[in-house]
């Protein structure tokens, strides 16, 4: 267990350390001459108008929700793929039924035009 996880933990610590050092370095090495115009939000050189954090299309949520659903579906496929050689035809039928039910949902989504971006 130690042999497996220790190197990964070590890498994480080193990479995290490196990231923080880089951020700090540029903070102290670079000159800082702030001015009001320099610190203003970039908007093609004109005065920024309104708040950037407005509302955005509901499509993005739909994508996020569908992603979760398909992600869960894929999670079931991993253990199935690994034991597939032992399950043989039985496994194919099992997964066939599972995927068929999900394909109904997929066609419903496509038919409703949820994946079309006008």
């Amino acid at each position, binding site marked *: 267990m130690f042999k497996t996880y220790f190197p990964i933990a070590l890498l994480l610590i080193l990479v995290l350390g490196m990231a923080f050092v880089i951020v700090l370095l*540029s903070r102290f090495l670079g000159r800082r001459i702030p001015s009001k115009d320099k610190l203003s939000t970039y908007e093609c050189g004109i005065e920024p108008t309104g708040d950037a954090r407005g509302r955005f299309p509901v499509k993005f949520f739909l994508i996020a929700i569908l*992603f979760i659903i398909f992600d869960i579906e894929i999670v079931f496929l991993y253990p199935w793929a690994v034991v597939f050689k032992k399950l043989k035809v039985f496994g194919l039928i099992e997964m*066939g039924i599972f995927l068929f039910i999900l394909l109904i949902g*997929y066609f419903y989504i496509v038919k409703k035009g949820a994946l079309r971006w006008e």
Partner: protein
Amino acid sequence: MLTVVIIALIKVAVVLVVLLLMIAYLTWLERKLLAHFQVRLGPMRVGPHGLLQPIADGLKLLFKEDVTPSGVNKVIYTLAPILSFVPAFMVFAVIPFGDKIFLFGRSIDLVISDFNMGILYIFAVASLGVYGIVLAGWSSNNKYSLLGGLRSSAQMVSYEVSLGLSVIGVLMLSESLSLVDIVRSQDTIFNWYIFRQPLGFIIFLICAIAETNRLPFDLPEADNELVAGYYTEYSSMKFAMFYLGEYANMINASAIATTLFLGGWQGPWLPPVVWFFLKLFTFLFLFIWLRATLPRFRYDQLMRFGWGILLPLALLNIFITGIVMVW
């Protein structure tokens, strides 16, 4: 235990240094290749054939002014580049880059850790990479950043589905999630999964390019409409960290493709490590070649392609693999 610690330290240090060097010279290689594709010379001034250019660029970025715009959410704005940098460097932990070597009477695996969930570990770490982009877009309080961040995350999330499905065929044949086992199961060239899983390979490659936000899928930073996408407001090394992350992801994608489909370090005559890097650079060359050749997708095309074509194709690939294996 002490030997385990020392071996781990050496391996991690070597991998990190090599990775950083590769990223630095990948930027040089990309500029050089792009230039030659366009019948130019590219960087020539700093060192012979511009070979010291990456070092000059790095130093310049380090000494640049670190501008933090006044409208940003400071904590998250600083955290975002770190969150996109760290996952990109964590992926390499499970990728085997060579066969066992014998040093001082001890056999050493040329992989940082042979985690038995290898491929799932990669997906887990990569799925955390989205946050850097979303948070950079949101915290900058800039319209281009927010749009770029949103687009990018929706794109990454969409192609992650097909990416996950495209490797299932390989796993069905190899019966293991460990990348070391997957490489070992491709002992002869005819067993390389690129030949046994051609459709899976193509889907994987397309999704990997989309995941790294490279052309023709570089909509998040579509320069002519979104300025620079989610890192519009970043400067100095914070900007460089997004860049480092992007190039590290390119190397990761190439390394995973090599491991899963091209037999990893396996090959005749040459030492395994050399084979691994040869295959790796083939993919990196492909990445750059595509950038020089293809125009950018439109966003609706991108979404329709991911969900409407790649997803069904990936499912079909699993189905065909299953039928052939049962036959």
